[in-house]
């Protein structure tokens, strides 16, 4: 299972980085979403992978670390809100400037 989770994080990160480097708002936002998925799984795995154990101290001998789950919840909520904000701002910039490049315009573009 470790190899599955690890490669999933790796592939999500690689895909996200590739999309971020496309420098147009839609791919960049998609790329950042992929990166946040990757980081969510990564955070989740930071408490070690345990199957079928409750995330609470009980009489059972094994339990899952509950803290990363709380951290992931916070991270998900924050990244969700942030993505919504960036979509709105990017939409405003695109509709106002009729251009969806993320980088600064070159002198030729500005003409």
């Amino acid at each position, binding site marked *: 299972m470790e190899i599955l989770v690890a490669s999933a994080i790796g592939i999500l990160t690689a895909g996200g980085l590739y999309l*971020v480097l496309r420098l147009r*708002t839609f791919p960049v936002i998609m790329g950042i979403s992929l990166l946040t998925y990757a980081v969510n799984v990564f*955070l989740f795995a930071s408490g070690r992978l345990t199957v079928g154990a409750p995330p609470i101290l009980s009489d059972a001998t094994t339990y899952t670390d509950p803290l990363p789950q709380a*951290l992931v919840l916070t991270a998900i909520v924050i990244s969700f809100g942030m993505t919504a904000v*960036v979509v709105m701002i*990017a939409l405003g910039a695109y509709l106002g*400037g009729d251009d969806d490049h993320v980088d600064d315009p070159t002198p030729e573009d500005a003409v």
Partner: protein
Amino acid sequence: MIHWLILPIVLPAFIAPFIVLAARYQIGIQRVISVASMVALIGIALGLSWSASDGSILLYQLGDWAAPFGIVLVGDRLSTMMVLLAAVLALFVLLYAIGSKWDERGRHFHALFQFQIMGIMGAFLTGDLFNLFVFFEVLLIASYGLMIHAGGTVRLRAGVQYVLFNLLGSTLFLFALGAIYAETGTLNMADLAQRVQLIDEGATVGIRVAAVLLLMVFAIKAAVVPLHFWLPSSYAEAPAPVAALFAIMTKVGAYAIIRVYTLIFPPDLAVTAGLHGWWLLPAALVSLAIGMIGILAARHLDRLVAFAVIGSMGMVMVSIALFTPEGIGAALYYIVHSTLAAGALFLISDLARAGRANLDLTAQPPMAGANLTAAMFFVGAIAMAGLPPLSGFVGKLLILDASFDTAQMVWVWAIVLGASLISVVGFARTGSILFWKANSVEAPEDAPAVARPSALSYVAVGGLLALLVAHTIFAGPATTYTTAMAKQLFTPDAYMTTVLTSKGKMSDAKSQGDH
């Protein structure tokens, strides 16, 4: 337990929704509430600084749960001073925003401003790395709103860059936190400081990666080269009062570096040896050089100030990267100076806008109220370039003195002094184009008469400049205090004992043998 310690976070957190809900359409009431909240914050911050000034560590356990499982706020000399600095800067910026009517040009300025302050205060006071992340997000999301305040395509475009860059930074922060948690099983700073010492020498890969990732995140915030690219266009396009408030945001990055890399990864820790001297110092020297060259090369006044921020952050980071008590002490003195000077310069660049078509560095007819604006620019530029007699000079002297005995002395001295010369030339050129050459340009016949900036705007800028003068006059007591602060940072035992051994709710339950 002192409940006062959480007030800098709670007060703006309550004021902001109150402004939105109760005073949505009354800008006058919003202004009164906002200013009153800032004045109250300064009072609270003064009280906190006073109680921390004897070297005691203020601790607040949320819900009375003890660390490391509960969330704690910690106020030592450094945190309380940063809180006070942020509150003072915010008050003057707010006065300027009211005086120049920037707050009327879009909606929810005052509410976002309060949320921004809440995030900044939280970042300074928290004793927990994950909460540092959360407060970073709070201050960022408020800053996104402030950054695009009053709209406009160019500003929105710069806003998109700013938001995207910071989203990447946040993702990196979470990766770093995950790695740290996986290696140590805790995110409380005091607890981390103890556990990192215990890590087996053969298994340090994870924690080293985490330390570097975390440094990168804070370097993005502090705009250290090569992670500074977001700063010039976002700060230049942001509304002037917002850019002035952002002067404290780069300092949040510097604060986080000081806190984490003296407490958790101190310079004598074998695991992260070389990170401070080998990586941070050269990057800081390069940012200092690039910032100052940018001052000379800038073609717009607002960009020039943005590069001055990068340069002065470079100066701060050079001093931090020495990681000696003297270096950190000098850096803290310079942080106060650089925050006030950068804030003042951003506001002055907005004053210079009155009656000019744009802020290009070309000769245009004199702006309205040119004499007073020119005088203020003169003072601000002297402070920022580090010429005597203002505090920039004192700060630079302290930094040069702190680096005197180190092996990197030649590099530090050469770049600090060379960069200062370049910035002096840059500021002199700008001042003469903006204010002297303007007198040789005839205003067109049909030019509309432009009103001078309001008196309140001048009061706000003058207040910041007066604080700079005070920072120079009382440089003796100020350096004594920052040196004491640095000493406290390098002897973190009191911090760790206070955080980890203070009892909270059910702390005694363990002894009853439940689990």
